[in-house]
């Protein structure tokens, strides 16, 4: 019986779990098939749900939440997300103003998006003065505590109040919650109302549910845009490395690069501005992707004076976006107006070209379509790619210049004194070497291998004796040697080189390359404890990825002044390429990780969905789910089989339509569902009912209906059906068997008992003393047998659930007095001295119980105490009120019960050691019956005993007290 109850409980728990998933896909699928309103809005067309009244349309709450989930699951962009979220909230909760504050990584601020009326559909973004600003104090509280905050009346929460800057909006009721993505806070969602006491705990639960959906959506969006950005950068890097092949032909190279950059950031128009030292200006370079070359060549010569904001961009290495170019005043100051007008650009993104030390110009990317705005992600992609382009452009420019110089210089033989690397052949060789290095770098994603090859090529080219690459590990700030070149291999490394004070650390922290002619004079080198004799001169350059120096390259030579400026520039270019290659490899891994993560998310979602469906379909028990209007929304295949009804015939119909045919059990089941839906307050503690349906073909079905509640909102019911015909039949046979057996036992016992009585009455002549004694023994054993049969029948009836209780108010004092009489009677009868005491307050409330059964419980316990307490002992009964329960102790000072025996004492047929030793007669069924009866009264029973003879034991039962409601109910009957 107990095991069965547990099983039922597990099934109901499982069903409640499943309904969450189940209802989800039912509602989703019903929505996709159902008609959408004309504007394609997936939300219910009715305005905000009236959450004030009790008779709220609960299914709408559920379906709005579901709609919110569906709308937000794959947001296209941030504004779709915000719009969907705010719209969803306005269907879900009342407010005068709602604000969704989202964390912006670029600025480090929470950017508010707000809706100033539930009826409005246009949200406002930003912090303008014309819109109301919710208190920052609350937002701050939410961010700090990462939970929700409910202030039905804002005046009442003193502890939050002092931080509040409430602004102009005089709201009185406030509800807010933090949006978190795993451990990270991504924003807050806050509502305010002008009327106090607008918000309650139910609203809070709803808001929390909605905010979970929104936070998930933000995560998805972030993941999606990050992924897109990585892909853009990855493809861009590969393209740029491909463009390196055109380094000999500057025009083609620029064309290729412009095209690549434009494609990567989705620009219609893209041009490169290169700095010209002679004219101190930025000059547009033909050709111009997507635009007319004449725009640039004719007009785009921009003086890089400090007054021009453009030079600020160029100098500070920060990008600049304007998505409203036409109204942007800075465009005029930049002297870009003619360009913008000619190219008909509406949105513009400007990023510097080149890395840090050697800025070589700027990139202009524009869109002719005002809708095609640039994002910060675009800017980051472009800035990052521009660093890769600059060495190529530089090399290309240099090559052109040198070729030009070559032509002029051949006429001047004195110029032969120039260093070798300044000769045109040298320049060409370098450009080619750079190409080889480029090719090498793009050939593999194995960073270490690529670094080794690059170091070798570069060292060869600049004639360095030794070289190494040091990189910062992912975690930690101590540099690690990743690749080295030279006879002495890693010997170039000195202890302390890894520290920030060493030469590599210095170039990284200063973001600057150095050329050192005499290492012995250099403090950054000498600060290291090294043998400086071997290396005399060096070049050190930082490796930059994004804005960050992630490592350094170091080349040394054993001769003083072995390196020239040109070699330093080459190494710088190589370092730029190396940075790109490392980033490339990192991005590749990030992309694969992301793809894997997205893939596995999708997979697990699919698995989850099919699992839920599979579980519902494969449960042998039937499952029926009704919504809050008692209409059936799910009818599982097992339910179809058990009840012989097709799902399509019942889904969508009220449960009463077909349940009437199933007899009284069915009616009670339907009534329970109706009562729950019509008066959710009646649910109280989650009630589990059990009813039985009897079908026409004599099958018996058990039903366990349970209400489905979110917060204190009734959303529907779930009922589990099981065909218990077999169990019922087995049970019937068992009772029949027990009844027959006990009947068959009682008949011969009647004869034995009767004739023993006759003999003892001397009805067949006078008996000798010994004969009399033997007959007494027969009589007492017959009595024992009789008790056993009675107990057997009792327990069989109890366990088959055939015993029904009729509850009434029972007077505790009266019950205890009866027990006193009982004990005194036995004490007298058996000549065993047992004293009896009662302790109970006069005011103790009445018990709610079945008179006969409570008597049986108490008598059983008292009998036990009597049996196990030697003559001269004492039995005490103590009653007290504990909350809604009455506890009654039966205390004796008898033999006590050992701990191991206490665990088994309520088992059927268990008899303790003491009872065998003492020869106490008993069936071992008494306490099992008591336990059963107590549980039928929804009470508890337990025993405490030290197991020490003379210290006795205490049995305590806890039974429900009669409540005022019960009294009324009883009275009405």
């Amino acid at each position, binding site marked *: 019986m107990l095991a069965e109850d547990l099983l039922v409980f597990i099934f109901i728990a499982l069903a409640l779990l499943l309904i969450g998933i189940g209802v989800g896909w039912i509602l989703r699928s019903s929505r996709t098939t159902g008609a959408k309103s004309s504007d394609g809005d997936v939300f219910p067309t009715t305005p905000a749900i009236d959450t004030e009244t009790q008779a709220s349309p609960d299914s709408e709450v559920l379906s709005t939440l579901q709609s919110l989930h569906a709308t937000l699951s794959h947001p296209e962009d941030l504004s779709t997300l915000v719009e969907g979220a705010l719209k969803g909230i306005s269907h879900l909760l009342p407010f005068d103003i709602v604000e969704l504050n989202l964390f912006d990584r670029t600025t480090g601020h929470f950017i508010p998006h707000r809706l100033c009326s539930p009826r409005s559909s246009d949200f406002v973004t930003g912090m303008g003065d014309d819109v109301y600003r919710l208190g920052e104090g609350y937002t701050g509280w939410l961010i700090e505590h990462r939970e929700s905050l409910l202030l039905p009346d804002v005046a009442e929460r003193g502890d939050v109040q002092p931080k509040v800057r409430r602004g102009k909006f005089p709201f009185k009721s406030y509800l807010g919650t933090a949006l978190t993505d795993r451990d990270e806070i991504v924003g807050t969602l806050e509502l305010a109302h002008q009327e106090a006491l607008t918000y309650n705990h139910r609203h809070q639960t709803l808001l929390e549910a909605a905010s979970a959906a929104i936070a998930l959506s933000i995560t998805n969006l972030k993941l999606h845009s990050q992924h897109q950005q990585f892909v853009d950068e990855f493809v861009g890097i590969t393209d740029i490395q491909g463009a390196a092949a055109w380094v000999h032909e500057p025009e083609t190279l620029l064309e290729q690069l412009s095209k690549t950059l434009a494609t990567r950031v989705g620009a219609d128009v893209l041009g490169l501005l290169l700095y010209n030292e002679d004219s101190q200006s930025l000059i547009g370079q033909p050709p111009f992707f997507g635009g007319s070359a004449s725009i640039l060549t004719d007009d785009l010569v921009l003086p890089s004076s400090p007054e021009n904001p453009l030079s600020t961009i160029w100098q500070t290495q920060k990008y600049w976006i304007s998505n409203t170019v036409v109204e942007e005043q800075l465009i005029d100051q930049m002297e870009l107006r003619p360009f913008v007008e000619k190219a008909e650009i509406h949105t513009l993104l400007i990023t510097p070209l080149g890395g840090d030390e050697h800025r070589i110009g700027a990139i202009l990317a524009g869109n002719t379509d005002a809708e095609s705005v640039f994002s910060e992600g675009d800017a980051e992609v472009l800035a990052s790619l521009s660093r890769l382009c600059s060495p190529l452009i530089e090399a290309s420019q240099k090559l052109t210049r040198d070729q030009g110089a070559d032509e002029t210089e051949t006429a001047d033989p004195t110029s032969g004194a120039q260093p070798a690397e300044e000769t045109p052949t040298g320049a060409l060789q370098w450009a080619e070497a750079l190409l080889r290095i480029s090719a090498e770098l793009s050939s593999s994603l194995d960073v270490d291998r690529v670094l080794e090859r690059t170091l070798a090529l570069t060292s060869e080219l600049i004639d360095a004796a030794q070289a190494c690459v040091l990189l910062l590990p992912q975690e930690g700030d101590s540099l690690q040697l990743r690749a080295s070149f030279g006879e002495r291999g890693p010997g170039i490394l000195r202890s302390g080189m890894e520290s920030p004070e060493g030469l590599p650390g210095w170039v990284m922290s200063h973001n600057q390359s150095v050329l050192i002619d005499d290492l012995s004079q250099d403090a950054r080198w000498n600060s290291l404890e090294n043998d400086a004799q071997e290396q005399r001169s060096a070049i050190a350059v930082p490796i930059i990825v994004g804005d960050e120096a992630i490592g350094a390259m170091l080349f040394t030579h054993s001769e003083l002044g072995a390196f020239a400026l040109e070699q330093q520039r080459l190494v710088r270019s190589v370092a730029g390429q190396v940075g790109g290659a490392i980033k490339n490899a990192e991005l590749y891994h990030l992309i694969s990780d992301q793809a894997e993560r997205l893939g596995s998310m999708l997979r697990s979602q699919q698995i989850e969905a099919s699992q839920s469906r599979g579980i519902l379909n494969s449960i042998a028990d039937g499952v029926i789910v009704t919504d809050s209007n008692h209409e059936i929304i799910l009818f599982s295949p097992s339910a179809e089989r058990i009840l012989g009804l097709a799902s399509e015939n019942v889904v969508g119909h009220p449960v009463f339509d077909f349940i009437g045919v199933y007899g009284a059990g069915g009616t009670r089941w339907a009534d329970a569902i109706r009562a729950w839906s019509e008066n959710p307050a009646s649910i109280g503690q989650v009630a589990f009912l059990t009813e039985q349906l009897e079908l026409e073909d004599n099958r018996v079905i058990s039903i366990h209906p349970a209400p489905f509640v979110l917060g204190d909102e009734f959303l529907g019911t779930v009922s589990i059906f099981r065909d218990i015909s077999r169990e019922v039949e087995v049970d019937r046979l068992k009772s029949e068997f027990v009844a027959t057996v006990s009947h068959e036992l009682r008949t011969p016992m009647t004869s034995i008992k009767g004739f023993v009585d006759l003999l003892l*009455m001397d009805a067949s002549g006078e008996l000798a003393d010994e004969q009399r004694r033997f007959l007494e023994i027969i009589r007492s054993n017959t009595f024992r047998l009789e008790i056993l049969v009675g107990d057997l029948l009792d327990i069989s009836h109890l366990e088959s659930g055939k015993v029904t209780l009729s509850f009434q108010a029972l007077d505790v004092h009266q019950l205890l007095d009866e027990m006193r009489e009982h004990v005194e009677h036995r004490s007298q009868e058996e000549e065993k001295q047992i004293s009896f005491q009662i302790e109970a307050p006069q005011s103790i409330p009445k018990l709610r119980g079945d008179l006969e059964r409570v008597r049986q419980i108490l008598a059983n316990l008292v009998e036990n105490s009597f049996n196990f307490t030697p003559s001269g002992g004492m039995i005490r009964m103590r009653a007290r009120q504990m909350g809604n329960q009455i506890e009654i102790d039966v205390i004796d000072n008898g033999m006590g019960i050992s701990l191991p025996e206490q665990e088994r004492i309520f088992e059927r047929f268990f008899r303790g050691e003491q009872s065998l030793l003492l020869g106490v007669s008993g069936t071992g069924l008494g306490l099992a019956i008591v336990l059963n009866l107590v549980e039928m009264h929804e009470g508890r029973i337990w025993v405490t005993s030290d197991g020490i003879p003379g210290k006795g034991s205490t049995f305590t039962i806890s039974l429900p007290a009669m409540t005022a409601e019960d009294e009324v109910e009883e009275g009405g009957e």
Partner: protein
Amino acid sequence: MAKILIAEDERDIRELIEFALNYNGHEVLTAVDGVSAWELTMAELPDLVLLDVRMPRMDGYELCRRIKRSEKLRHIPVAFLSAKGQEAEIQAGLDAGAEEYILKPFSLDQLDQAVERLLNA
């Protein structure tokens, strides 16, 4: 001194009750099945009928109902002596019109008290 009919198919129990009632000075008539008990009741008009529930040819319930339906016999008190102790079974006996339902195994004291009670009612 009263005339008491015992309808009981178990020989031992029949003998036991007969002996006990005789011992207390009553006149005892016995029947081994429902039909002969019915005929004996009609013929002898006993002061009290003690009957088993489960009997051949006609069960105790039916016999009791017949006695209680009959103008002539209705006044005769009837008590069941049965090992069937379930509530529904006891209720069925009382519904058939019996005055008492004595559960087997009973003690002779119980039997004596019940007989006295019924005869003096």
